[in-house]
């Protein structure tokens, strides 16, 4: 589904990713771990199309209608419409726009692109009510401006709600576990597990093994200084927890 080939990325002239290779198939969960500054967040943002990063070489291929398509040629909104989703590490406030209007506009933009019927208010509300159960979200959130005045945990839950609504084929979750207490972590990972199925794939960017107790990865990759230096199964994360990066990498 996703094939990252020899990806090199710079920002303001500093090379951050130095030849990433990564293949993700439908149904898989990949965890990407690594020390601060190793390029984890950059990788997920580049796949989603953040304009601040310059791809100096390499490819990001994504299957669209069973055709390999270079994502780098698509605008960020087209990537989203084709099923790429990024849950932000720091979700952005959108003052003056209610969560409901935001979700509805987003959902209907994607539907329109995919040729699916748009949902009018009553149908969309019903649809949304189901999705909100995934992350045990209070309906009051819908009438509040997007992320404004939300606690850290509420923002992260809101990201997963957006994911549930858009139902992406590839979800990139950038430190979705950071800033969550143990109860919120359970709720958020529960939501992700409900959305995950054999037709979609999840890439988790995280610092902590803790998340992987709830969402069990098929692969764990360790990113260091812009390269994937080690790949293993879920046990690699446990080793990491014991020995730290130094222990695992040496």
């Amino acid at each position, binding site marked *: 589904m996703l094939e990252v080939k020899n990806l090199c990325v710079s920002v303001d002239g500093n090379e951050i990713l130095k030849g990433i290779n990564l293949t993700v198939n439908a149904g898989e969960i990949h965890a990407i771990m690594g020390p601060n500054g190793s390029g984890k967040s950059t990788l997920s943002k580049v796949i989603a199309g953040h304009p601040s990063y310059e791809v100096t070489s390499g490819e990001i291929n994504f299957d669209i209608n069973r055709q390999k398509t270079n994502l780098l040629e698509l605008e960020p909104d087209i990537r989203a419409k084709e099923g790429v989703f990024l849950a932000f590490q720091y979700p952005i406030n*959108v003052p003056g726009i209610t969560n409901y209007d935001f979700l509805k506009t987003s959902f209907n933009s994607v539907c329109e692109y995919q040729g699916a019927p748009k949902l009018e208010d009553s149908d969309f509300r019903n649809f949304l009510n189901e999705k909100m159960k995934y992350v045990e979200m209070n309906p009051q959130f819908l009438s509040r401006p997007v992320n404004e005045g939300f606690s850290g945990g509420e923002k992260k839950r809101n990201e997963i709600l957006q994911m549930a609504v858009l139902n992406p084929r590839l979800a990139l979750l950038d430190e979705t576990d950071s800033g969550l207490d143990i109860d919120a972590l359970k709720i958020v990972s529960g939501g992700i597990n409900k959305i995950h199925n054999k037709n979609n794939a999840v890439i988790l960017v995280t610092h902590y093994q803790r998340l992987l107790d709830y969402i069990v990865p098929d692969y764990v990759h360790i990113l260091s200084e812009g390269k994937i230096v080690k790949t293993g199964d879920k046990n690699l994360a446990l080793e990491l927890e014991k020995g730290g990066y130094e222990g695992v990498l040496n």
Partner: protein
Amino acid sequence: MSSTSIDKEYKYGFTTDIDVDQLAKGLNEDVIRKISSLKNEPEWMLKHRLKSFKIWQKMTEPQWAQVNYEPIDYQDICYYSAPKSYVGVNADGEKPKNLEDLDPELLKTFEKLGISVNEQKRISGVAVDMVFDSVSVGTTNKEILDKYGVIFCSISEAIQKYPDLVKKYYGSVVPATDNFYAALNGAVFTDGSFCYIPKGVKCPIDLSTYFRINAEETGQFERTLLIAEEGSYVNYLEGCTAPMRDTNQLHAAVVELVALENAEIKYSTVQNWYTGDKEGRGGIYNFVTKRGKCLGKNSKISWTQVESGSAITWKYPSVILQGDNSQGFFYSVALTHDYMQADTGTKMIHVGKNTKSTIISKGISADKSSNVYRGQVKIMPSAEGARNYSQCDSMLVGDMCNASTVPYIEVKNKSAVLEHEASTSRLSEDQLFYLQSRGMSLEESISMLVNGFCKEVFKQLPLEFSVEAVKLIEMKLENSVG
């Protein structure tokens, strides 16, 4: 970054090729007498004009606004320009009855601006007064207004037909001595709209004036007077456009509103004068004095403005809250881009007891523009229990622009309660990326962010105006973001 320039997209930048009667450039007593005689004015109005002119001659241009421009040569402006085919008011104050009899070029111009005279006749939701350079060329939907006793006509017509009303209220809100541009306007104003809503009448349709500057090197000095009698209500809309020219043109209008007991006036403007080009050449100098007086108890006046045009905007729609329990509102969105400069805001003068004012100002500055909110809240000793709430938010697009908030607060009564909130934010790449990564296109994303930012102001506008305002701002910002 989109490469289309705003100039190409200013669809109102065309010129109408029409023969005109123009006075030679320059300003002196003779010119003023000539304007007055062209308009068949009574002696008392000429006296007003000459008095204003004397006052103006002793005044100097205000320098306190944060705007820069080359000094204006007031002798190098033409003060009267009217289409040759224009049939003015005769000595009885009558104008041609049939709008279809207007010059086809004029009809075409207003049609191109989206105001079809014929269509207007059918659409009964709004009555439009069309002002072309120095003259009002026609007013639509008069029949409906007549039924309710609502007077809506050009000020020239009103001076002849309703002299008592004009004499009573003209200059009562904005006297000639108020400021330099108001004095100039008092001397040379050529046309504008007059509205009178009788006691207890809720005006059945919206009233609207469309101002069009066409002639080159001509100033437009219009004068609007709106009177709402006891217990009446009116919704008034105003739109403005001008052709694209390399030279600057002056627009110095005066608008006076009077609300009597329990009356309510809602005045909305979408200002889209030509802004000048990418290098800052040309554009309109929009130096305007707008003020309302809540004369009666429980009266209400609200100003809603979307300022998206003009090279320079100098404009402070204000309310004098004289009647007890009266309320004043100011809702503003001011967008500046390229080299535009805006210094705009309001004055709320509390005189009566338990008077309330609300100020919501949203400034968006892009490119190399400068955008200043300047507002005064004054609580007089008599204004027991006065309240004000002010909120001034600025949004920056890019890193070359400038936004400032300059509040002046003067409180002379201890019982007053005032609140002031201000914020500055940036329309950032991250924000746009967030929305785009949720499947919204760049245009949809800008639209959503701007809408969210301006929401409290847009919701004050009549629906069709608000749709137009959102589109206008989106289109202008798409060039500055990306």
